[in-house]
């Protein structure tokens, strides 16, 4: 028995004394505001206060707090958010929210002994808490302004779009009540753990599983138990991944069996003597191994281990480059990058009648439902996905993780089941950014006009297809950057290896390609003798000019973005020159890079459906099925719907994604939710408004208001009051409702990749200022100035948050992130930017309306990461002359490149 106080209440808990405090708080005391992101002291999500000091609850045996006062996030907000928590909301300091309780507690500890901390003090105090979403800038702002007052605007009808509205779903995040995948409680649930392959390539056979299971009081499930088709994939045509491997493991960490049992048994269970016999094979660990002639193939139907190649060709690039006045060429190699969201995959399954219910973190509820149903041999009506709050995704939570495994156990046992990945399991089993080996050549004429470009890249898609086809198709479309390139030839291939599955990660291969293309553009500008920004401006895409796919665009904002950087560019070049002239041992540089990115699926149907209804009691409900994984869909889409309907946004009640109650909004991927689901919401709300106006026989300018079950319409002197209770029930429990679907118009690409792959593009450019330690090769990014064309800024607060977060991830990709299977499956060997690594960010939000997007809006989520790495690389080269041919630009590589540049 251990006695201590938690949030002022004494607690006596009867647990083994060595249990971690995090576990005791969450499981024994049901205080699940304290999160567990790594269970190793690396992420700080479990930060609580003990006698006022911030500590990691995951490394503290409960006996160490005997007689002491523990405070958790639940203890702060007794009657509503505290001033600090309000500051987090006001400043947009929470996105997915999984890090927020830890951040808030670390900040609380600081503020109690230092009411007016400066930025450095905040950075020190929060240095042990990782955030993967925000880029930390808004967190720092919130802590510095904790004494401030007020809340974000609550705009009146018609004024939501453009307002800095606080996240509508934010209060639960800052107060620690948000239920993520691991927070769903069901005491009777069987706990599932997976037996995973320790080898990258091996065949296997099981021994006596029954005996092993019986002796331990658990149940074991293997591929043989799967009732449906043991093969899933995000793109059905390429589906190739088993939920549990059958006889062959194609990657380290592949699940081969599940063990399920009661919590106590499972906690103590060791897999050391699990009866499986491995026959280890020679794995292909690199693109070179997989492509070698005679290499064993991973999938029979894919000879040469090539999954797919994507091509875009326009004009005659051979002639163009042969005749070009200036040509540069270069190569770039990039490694696996891990998403490193702070929430490891987790969820719960249970039966309701004959319907399997799954509550897990995800970016794609309907895809989860369909794939899980397929694996389990169920009709889709018998699977209901009710997503948990998702603690970051960035692409990897598009693929199935726990869903089919939970489903299998619950379906076969009839019992609820729960599965929570450990940090290392999350890192070993989830998808990665594709490692790439790319080569490109770019030419320009004497005036600096681009004449042609060749791009060729191999992308390591790992053991299974996942999003490999998307990467192979997207990269050739985007590898030109947002520039006019009349002669172009680009090919990208997705190649299977026995490495981790590479899937979707913010940008689908485009960030890798841009990192090469934008570096070459700098070299070309230098060769021509042109200012690097002016060179980009001269070649930037414009309205009506065709892209490398032959698509003529309108609403092209890249020129405006580059223009917005001009004044900082001029100033930074001068200040850098001054610094370099007066400083030894360090050099500063400035770099710029652009991005463009098509929103939604490439040349494929991509619909979203939204429903909006008004109940007899007068509640307006938006069935918002577009998963908000922190990026802000819940808020932004509600803002759009509110303005289209003509009511205040705070009057809209969100109905969260649930495959039984929200229509299909597709996946939260490809920066499509604001554009595609947002437009569906606008259409649905507009249709509902039209119905109301028609019913009231009022003109289109009528003002609608809703109060106490009465809908009032006013137009000039005319006024109509509609008592909602007197209307007949229409459907879904509403008296008035509308549902609309939007599918962005695209055109299939021909064999040369010509066509209209996307309906809407977004644009951006970033300027990085860096300082390089010439002796150590370390790079400090001092400042990033970002200009992004959003078409229409729906919520500046959230847009800035996306930009700052994307820049932090781009910085990680540029300088430190490198995943090696078996070596970096934790958050201390795998480095992600901490609060001390991120630069000052200045955002310019540009509005060049898109004729297709909702109220002119364009996507943003992935765009923001694309220019960061090349801008940093260009700044390093500007500072030192070093040309990096491999990412990340680790200090040893930077140093070697500096030495190569000098010799």
């Amino acid at each position, binding site marked *: 028995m251990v006695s201590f106080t938690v949030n002022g209440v004494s607690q006596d808990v009867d647990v*083994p*004394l*060595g249990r*971690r405090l995090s576990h005791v708080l969450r499981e024994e005391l049901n205080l699940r505001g304290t999160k567990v992101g790594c*269970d*190793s*002291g*690396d992420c*700080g999500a479990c*930060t609580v206060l003990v006698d006022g*000091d*911030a*500590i*990691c609850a995951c*490394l*503290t*045996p409960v*006996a*160490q707090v005997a007689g002491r006062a523990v405070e958790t996030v639940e203890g702060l907000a007794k009657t509503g958010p505290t001033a600090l928590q309000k500051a987090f909301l006001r400043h947009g300091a929470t996105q997915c929210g999984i890090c927020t309780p830890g951040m808030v507690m*670390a900040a609380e*500890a600081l503020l109690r002994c230092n009411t007016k901390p400066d930025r450095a003090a905040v950075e*020190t*105090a929060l*240095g*042990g808490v990782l955030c993967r979403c925000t880029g930390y800038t808004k967190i720092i702002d919130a802590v510095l302004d904790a004494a401030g007052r007020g809340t974000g605007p609550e705009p009146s009808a018609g004024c939501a779009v453009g307002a800095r509205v606080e996240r509508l779903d934010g209060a639960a995040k800052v107060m620690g009540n948000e239920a993520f995948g691991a927070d769903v409680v069901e005491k009777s649930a069987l706990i599932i753990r997976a037996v995973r392959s320790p080898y990258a390539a091996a065949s296997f056979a099981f021994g006596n599983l029954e005996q092993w299971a019986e002796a331990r009081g658990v149940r074991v499930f293997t591929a043989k138990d799967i009732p449906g088709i043991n093969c899933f994939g995000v793109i059905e045509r390429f589906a190739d991944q088993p939920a549990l491997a059958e006889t062959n493991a194609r990657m380290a960490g592949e699940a081969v069996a599940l063990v399920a049992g009661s919590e106590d048994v499972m*906690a*103590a269970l*060791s897999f050391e003597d699990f009866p499986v016999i491995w026959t280890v094979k020679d794995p292909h660990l690199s693109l070179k191994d997989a492509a070698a002639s005679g290499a064993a193939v991973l999938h029979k139907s894919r000879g040469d281990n090539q999954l797919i190649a994507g091509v875009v060709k326009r004009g005659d690039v051979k002639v163009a480059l042969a005749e070009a006045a200036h040509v540069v060429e270069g190569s770039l190699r990039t490694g696996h990058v891990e998403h490193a969201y702070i929430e490891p995959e987790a969820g719960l399954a249970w039966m309701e009648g004959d319907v399997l219910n799954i509550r897990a973190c995800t970016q794609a509820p309907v895809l989860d439902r369909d794939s899980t149903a397929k694996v389990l041999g169920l009709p889709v009506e018998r699977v209901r996905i009710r997503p948990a709050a998702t603690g970051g995704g960035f692409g990897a939570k598009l693929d199935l993780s726990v869903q089919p495994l939970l489903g299998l156990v619950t379906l076969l046992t009839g019992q609820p089941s729960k599965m929570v990945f*450990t940090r*290392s399991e999350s890192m070993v089993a989830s998808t990665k950014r594709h490692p790439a080996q790319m080569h490109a050549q770019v030419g320009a004429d004497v005036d600096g006009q681009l004449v042609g470009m060749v791009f060729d890249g191999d992308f390591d898609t790992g053991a299974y297809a996942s999003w490999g086809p998307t990467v192979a198709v997207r990269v050739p479309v985007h590898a030109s950057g947002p520039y006019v390139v009349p002669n172009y030839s680009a090919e990208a291939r997705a190649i299977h290896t026995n490495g981790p599955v590479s899937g979707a990660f913010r940008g689908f291969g485009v960030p890798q390609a841009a990192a090469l293309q934008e570096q070459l553009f700098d070299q070309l500008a230098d060769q021509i003798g042109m200012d690097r920004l002016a060179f980009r401006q001269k070649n930037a895409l414009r309205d009506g000019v065709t892209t490398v796919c032959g698509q003529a665009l309108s609403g092209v904002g890249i020129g405006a973005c580059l223009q917005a950087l001009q004044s900082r560019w001029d100033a930074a070049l001068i200040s850098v020159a001054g610094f370099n002239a007066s400083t030894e041992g360090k050099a500063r540089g400035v770099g710029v890079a652009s991005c463009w990115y098509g929103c939604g699926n490439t040349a494929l149907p991509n619909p979203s459906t939204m429903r909006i209804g008004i109940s007899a009691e007068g509640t307006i409900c938006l069935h918002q099925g577009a998963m908000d994984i922190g990026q802000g869909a819940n808020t932004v889409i509600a803002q759009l719907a509110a303005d289209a309907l003509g009511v205040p946004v705070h009057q809209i009640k969100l109905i969260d994604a649930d495959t039984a109650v929200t229509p299909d909004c597709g996946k939260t991927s490809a920066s499509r939710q604001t554009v595609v689901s947002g437009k569906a919401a606008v259409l649905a709300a507009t249709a509902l408004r039209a119905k109301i106006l028609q019913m009231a026989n009022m003109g289109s300018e009528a003002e609608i208001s809703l109060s106490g079950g009465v809908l009032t319409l006013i137009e000039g002197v005319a006024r109509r009051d509609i008592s909602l209770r007197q209307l007949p029930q229409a459907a879904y429990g509403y008296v008035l409702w509308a549902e609309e679907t939007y599918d962005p118009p695209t055109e299939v690409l021909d064999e040369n990749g010509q066509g209209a792959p996307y309906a809407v593009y977004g644009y951006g450019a970033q300027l990085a200022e860096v300082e390089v330690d010439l*002796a*150590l090769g*370390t790079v400090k990014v001092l400042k990033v100035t970002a200009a992004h064309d959003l078409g229409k800024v729906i919520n500046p607060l959230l847009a800035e948050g996306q930009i700052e977060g994307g820049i932090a991830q781009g910085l990680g990709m540029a300088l*430190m992130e*490198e995943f*090696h299977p078996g*070596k*970096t499956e934790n958050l*201390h*060997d795998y*480095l992600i*930017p*901490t*609060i*001390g*690594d991120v630069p000052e960010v200045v955002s310019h939000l540009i509005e060049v309306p898109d004729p297709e997007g909702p109220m002119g809006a364009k996507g943003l989520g992935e765009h923001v990461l694309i220019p960061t790495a090349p801008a940093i690389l260009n700044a390093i080269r500007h500072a030192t002359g070093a040309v990096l041919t491999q990412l990340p630009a*680790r*200090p*040893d590589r930077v*140093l070697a490149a500096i030495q190569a540049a000098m010799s």
Partner: protein
Amino acid sequence: MIPAEFEYYRPKDMAGVLSLLEEHGDDARVMAGGHSLIPMMKLRMADVPHLIDLQDVGGLSNIEINSDSIHIGALVTQSDIVEHAGLADVAPILREAALQIADPQVRYMGTIGGNVANGDPGNDMPGLMQCLDAVFTVAGADGERQIPARDFYEAAYMTAREDDEVLTSVTIAHPQGGYAYEKQKRKIGDYATAAAAVQITKEGGTCVSASIAMTNLSDTPVYSEAAGAALVGTSLNDAALSAAIAAMWGDIDPTEDNRGPIAFKNHVAGVILRRALERAWSRA
């Protein structure tokens, strides 16, 4: 993975600790802050059936500053070192180094005893203690004995402390002259790619003594007597610095890992040592 089940003890005095250690032999380990041990147990790198928590043992949490020596109890935390006002006056290098360890959450729990007893070449305190020529006091069934930090480290996780002994305190003579703890790390909370601890004294413009130790560049911390000797009698001009660095290179033995290849680590060690020496000299 969840650590294998273990028995947890919380004795009230050292006698209790020692008798548990005697009873369980190899199967028992003491725990101080747990911030190295628990992660290792989680990764099953350490199998500890009997865990003996030292937190309730009295007399291990004091910092005493005597006229010529400093006495630090094994349970003194890194944040105690950062916050102790008197300590920063007599031995400022301790604070400078402690502040470069991890983050506030870790510093609040991690102890000096755990840090020096752990034997992980990545820990910062061992090199620092070698630089300061600290003496560790360990208690065992046969009473106490003193082990100089410079003789304490044998290999990774192998020290001169016997399994049934407990480190109770660290004693340091008041450091003299200029100091610097210079650490190259990849991010907040990272162990060193290379770190150098330096104490240096000068008279006129000439170096009288120099003590140099390096961290995470071998399987133990490296006290480089030769590097120090190369500086004595010099004005720390460029030639002397280069000679000291060359001597240090002769004593370290880095291996390739995520932090970089061997040549790079040697290079960084040289840069870091040069910077530490320049800073210490300017403070001497």
